[in-house]
């Protein structure tokens, strides 16, 4: 498809060909241990998690830009009608204010769930998150903390987002002790992880892959349940290569794993990191000890992306087990492009090629 796009400029018809998504969402099997389930997509599973929270925790409040009518991605639909306008309310257009305000709410004892409309807009709030929220407990000697704060933001490429609606800023926050950064891959994971973040006594940032809001549909339990943080999940066992990713990229890697099995006879172990900070070093290293090869993939630019942290730690812990250099298949070191998006993202072909090179090292 990459070749087709380059060569096609002259034969393009008046109506633009639709860009197909670079991944196929692969739903998880229906969980049986959490009670009755219902078909939900990603934004509905988020609404369900928030609904459970507002029902069980009388101090919980949800705020952000446009959350009252349901949110620009419909994650908070119906909550204001159900729980009242003093619990689900809009803020003016001020990210720094939203997070600062959220920290205050959390420190005073209420559960604050702040929404930043797009992860790309989180930067005015960066100071509040890094300098205030993350350091509150530490600097007060545990007298105060803003563990009741959870920040949610839509994250990642969406096909037409270009520079300011596609960014994946998890690496900026991974550099900040005191925060937890969590990214789900699917509705079932999203609800469980979001409820864990809200319950967790540390400030958490929850990035939701916006391209999956409608595309990902699964049978999600209606009752509340939690999925533990800082535990990576091994989705598929394998013996030759370990593939690590999070969010949307997991679905790309799952496809790559089946391609590798079919075409190269290579058995891949796919790991969803889920929590970026603090990340599950043990699971990843155990897997690399078994397979000897590691590929990490994310949409964010390669320099300083979170794959560099994983790569560095794994080579420290598993140096003698490595059969090939650790591969990082990530975005280019450019701002997220407008027209070049299909070339920029680490799609399945690039990951597949990386596996081929690792196997033949």
């Amino acid at each position, binding site marked *: 498809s990459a070749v087709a796009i*380059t060569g096609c*400029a*002259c034969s393009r018809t*008046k*109506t*633009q060909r*639709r860009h197909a998504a670079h991944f196929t969402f692969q739903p998880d099997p229906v969980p049986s241990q959490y009670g009755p389930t219902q078909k939900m997509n990603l934004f509905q599973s988020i609404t369900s998690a928030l609904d459970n929270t507002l029902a069980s925790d009388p101090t919980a409040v949800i705020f952000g*830009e*446009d959350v009252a*009518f349901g949110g620009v991605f419909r994650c908070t639909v119906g909550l204001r009608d159900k729980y009242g306008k003093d619990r689900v309310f*809009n803020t*003016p*257009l*001020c990210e*720094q*204010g939203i997070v600062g305000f959220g920290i205050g709410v959390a420190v005073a004892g209420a559960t604050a769930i702040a929404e930043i409309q797009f992860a*790309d*807009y989180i*930067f*005015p709030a960066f100071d509040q998150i890094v300098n205030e929220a993350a350091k509150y407990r530490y600097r007060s000697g545990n007298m105060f903390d803003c563990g009741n704060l959870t920040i949610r933001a839509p994250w990642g490429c969406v096909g*037409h*987002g*270009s*520079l*300011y*609606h596609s960014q994946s800023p998890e690496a900026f926050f991974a550099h900040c002790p005191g925060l937890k950064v969590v990214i789900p891959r699917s509705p079932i994971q999203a609800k469980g992880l979001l409820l864990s973040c809200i319950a967790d006594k540390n400030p958490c940032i929850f990035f939701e892959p916006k391209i999956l809001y409608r595309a990902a549909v699964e049978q999600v339990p209606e009752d509340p349940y939690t999925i533990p943080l800082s535990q990576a999940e091994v989705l598929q066992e394998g013996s030759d290569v370990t593939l690590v990713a999070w969010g949307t990229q997991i679905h790309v890697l799952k496809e790559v794993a089946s391609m590798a099995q079919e075409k190269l006879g290579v058995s891949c172990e796919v790991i969803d990191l889920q929590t970026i900070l603090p990340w599950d070093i043990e699971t990843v290293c155990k897997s690399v000890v078994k397979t000897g090869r590691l590929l990490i993939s994310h949409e964010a630019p*390669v*320099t300083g992306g979170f794959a560099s942290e994983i790569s560095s730690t794994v080579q420290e812990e598993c140096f003698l087990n490595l059969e090939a*250099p650790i*591969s*990082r*298949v*990530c*975005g*280019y*070191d*450019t*701002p997220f*492009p*407008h*027209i*070049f998006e299909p*070339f*920029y*993202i*680490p799609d399945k072909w*690039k990951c597949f*090629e*990386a596996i081929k*090179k690792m196997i033949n090292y």
Partner: protein
Amino acid sequence: VQNFITVMETLFQLVVFVFQGARVVVSRSFADFTPQATFDIKKCDLHRLEEGPPVKAELTREQGLQYYRTMQTVRRMELKADQLYKQKIIRGFCHLYDGQEACAAGIEAAINPSDHLITAYRAHGYTYTRGVSVKEILAELTGRRGGVAKGKGGSMHMYAPHFYGGNGIVGAQVPLGAGIALACQYQGNNQVCVTLYGDGAANQGQLFESYNMAALWKLPCIFICENNKYGMGTSVERAAASTDYYKRGDFIPGLRVDGMDVLCVREAAQFAADHCRAGKGPIIMELQTYRYHGHSMSDPGVSYRTREEIQEVRSKSDPISMLKERMLSHNMASVEEFKEIDIEIRKQVEDATQFATSDPEPPLEELCNHIFSNNPLLEVRGTNPWSKLKSVS
């Protein structure tokens, strides 16, 4: 002789009438149009100002036709962008400016091309008034190499000499504008910087930081709030504790202007520019305007306001109609002239669309160009360790 002339005139008009279809109107004499007229305009509300802009505006025939042409071009260009977006030829984000044309046209009429202007993402109108052709704007929207930013910026990132965009992050352009004004002051070139933002951005903290710096150092910065009553889907009453945006600068003088009247905008902008050039420091203008489309192409624009409201503004305060009616009622131009201009503009936009849809996309090498300024070629790491692209800048 008088009778003879009258007879000839009538005969002439008859001839012209007969040839109307073939558009021989060109041969009609324009000597019977009023060359200049004075119009009453709305008085501006003032904040910390003793006197405001004049309540009467002079308009010459040439100026009127020029403003009409500018506004109509912006209008047609935006409607064409709407059409192309619905055909999925333009993708990504597209924030249309129709309804607000008087702001762009009026401001441009009041400032010099050597002055500076910076605005937010609803920028197509200003890109045009600052000198970029419709062709280049549409090609940038469709992401082709003929676009003003080589196809790499898209709708929100169009630039021109003395026009600094085109900014996606809400409110981020205001400190930039204050900085440009500082540069003007430092270089002593008697230029001003017009810094635009919307009613939604008026609640961002960085604006107040900019107001403080501009007032402290008396920067020649004209802060303009284009209040179109809705910040995306939130009406101003629900977002702002004070909707008197012209007073929000507190210690900075302000004016509230009817943004649907191009003459009102022009007079106010002229007043503001004179204020800044006289070294009196910054000034805030609030332009009360309206957008017909939703916030962006993904917003139908009717879930937070009624169709009746939009219709009412369209029928009573449309900037283009207002100017046209004024000129016609004062016999400054004819209906046919306006029709001709419309046809010309339509053709111009069609040609631009043709270019924008047939121009090739930028080559893949452009992906990595212009990241840094670098003399030897910079190697940019790609998705894999062995795939590197060269970056030229």
